[in-house]
């Protein structure tokens, strides 16, 4: 184990800003990308569902 | 001869037309009709090999066009909506270039004679920019006079022509047909041409494309 305490872990031997800046931004970027992809799929589905429902109503 | 079975054309996710059959033999003409947006230009572009077919087969002299593409293009003259006229070149230069690109360079005398016959006498060296709309069309049509192509595909050739020019174009087309040429064209007006002719009406209402896979 490299770390004696949590604060030591977060300080990263004085490099905390750089290390957490890297890992944090990476995690945030991947998370945002995943959320955007999910939004894109659900938006498309909602649009299509509405369109199809309207088509069905027209046929009835 | 040119023959096509079951042609279909898509634009975006809309089907413009489908199941179009046609055939043109030497000496025959085919007029493609239809409302605006029915796909007349698209059909002509497909037949000329400019646009891909969604479905169907086009045969030239009994063989699929895809296999004999070079031979087919060597025997084809296509005039589209855009007349391929450069505003900064003179009528004569325009004619020379288009002929050379089409693989049949012209000599000076032939080119001059063609321009004279089409009614551009004395305007051979004027830049196309100063010509009227109808005169520009004539520069494009002068290509017909020097063409050895068997098959002519003309998109709206009568547009922007006056009565005299229409009559003259008709006689050029008649000559072509009487030499055993083939002709496919679109026009909104009824045209009297020699030889056997047919008309093809594109008018299927646009339907959404189904079951695409």
């Amino acid at each position: 184990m490299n770390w004696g305490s949590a604060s030591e872990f977060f300080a990263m031997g004085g490099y905390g800003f750089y290390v957490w800046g890297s890992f944090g931004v990476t995690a945030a970027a991947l998370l945002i990308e995943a959320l955007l992809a999910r939004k894109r799929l659900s938006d498309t589905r909602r649009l299509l569902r509405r369109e199809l429902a309207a088509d069905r109503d027209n046929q009835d | 001869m040119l023959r096509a079975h079951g042609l279909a054309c898509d634009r975006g996710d809309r089907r413009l037309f489908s199941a179009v059959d046609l055939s043109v033999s030497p000496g025959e003409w085919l007029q493609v009709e239809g409302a605006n947006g029915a796909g007349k230009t698209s059909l002509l572009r497909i037949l000329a090999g400019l646009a891909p077919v969604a479905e169907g087969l086009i045969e030239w002299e009994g063989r699929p066009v895809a296999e004999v593409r070079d031979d087919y293009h060597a025997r084809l003259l296509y005039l589209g909506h855009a007349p391929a006229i450069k505003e900064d070149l003179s009528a004569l230069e325009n004619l020379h270039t288009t002929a050379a690109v089409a693989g049949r360079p012209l000599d000076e005398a032939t080119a001059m004679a063609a321009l004279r016959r089409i009614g551009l006498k004395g305007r051979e060296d004027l830049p196309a920019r100063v010509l009227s709309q109808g005169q520009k069309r004539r520069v494009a049509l002068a290509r017909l006079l020097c063409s050895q192509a068997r098959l002519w595909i003309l998109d709206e050739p009568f547009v922007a022509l006056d009565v005299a020019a229409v009559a003259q174009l008709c006689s050029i087309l008649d000559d072509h047909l009487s030499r055993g040429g083939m002709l496919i064209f679109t026009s909104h007006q009824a045209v009297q041409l020699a030889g056997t002719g047919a008309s093809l009406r594109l008018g299927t209402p646009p339907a959404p494309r189904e079951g695409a896979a």
Partner: protein
Amino acid sequence: MSQRLINWFKFASPASFYPLAGTLWPWFAGLASVLCAVGLWISFFVAPTDFQQGEGYRIIFIHVPASWMSMFIYCVMAFWAAIGITFNTRLSGMMSSALAPTGALFAFLSLWTGALWGKPMWGAWWVWDARLTSELILFFLYIGYIALTSAIDDPRRADKAGAIVALVGVINVPIIYFSVKWWNTLHQGASVSMTKAPTMATTMLWGMLIMALAFWMYSIAIALYRVRAIILERERHATWVAELPEMQR
């Protein structure tokens, strides 16, 4: 001949790939999470402190895998582009455009983490090092691809144009890398070489490999997920879309 090809490319049909991608992506996402957890654990708790760079070197565990992924994804895009041009399959273009944003993101992350690593180690946010410079150009190539494909309205045309960009780019990537390297050695005095990596402990290598695998799985999962959205957007009028269970409500 086409009959056999169609059988061969059965899954190249969007209609059958859509549900397949739907089944597959959670597995890849799960794998990505597990690998990521293991990778992070190695990065922070197993790998020892570097005697030269202290704890700062731990950025390597995402910097290097992100760079690898950005290059690898570009190659995969070029691969799909080649398939799309040769066999005229629709799915390949969709895969390329599903991958591009992820590739661009990894290129960006590689630059970002590179800057954050460079500042404490070499005293500058940016050095005109051969690797950083080529990564920057790769990022430009991604941006060019995305800009072009999103500027063309007709999706099939966009796919074909994108395929050409991807192929031209992939021919150019080694040329660019080589030229930048050459340029860099010519200007050796002006810049610091970042290529002198510290001698690597085995645990560090493992950490990097596992993180790379995690990114890889993530990329597959997100590409599969995104391609489903793209398939739906493009095939909206196909009957199979209307028959999908999620479209019934």
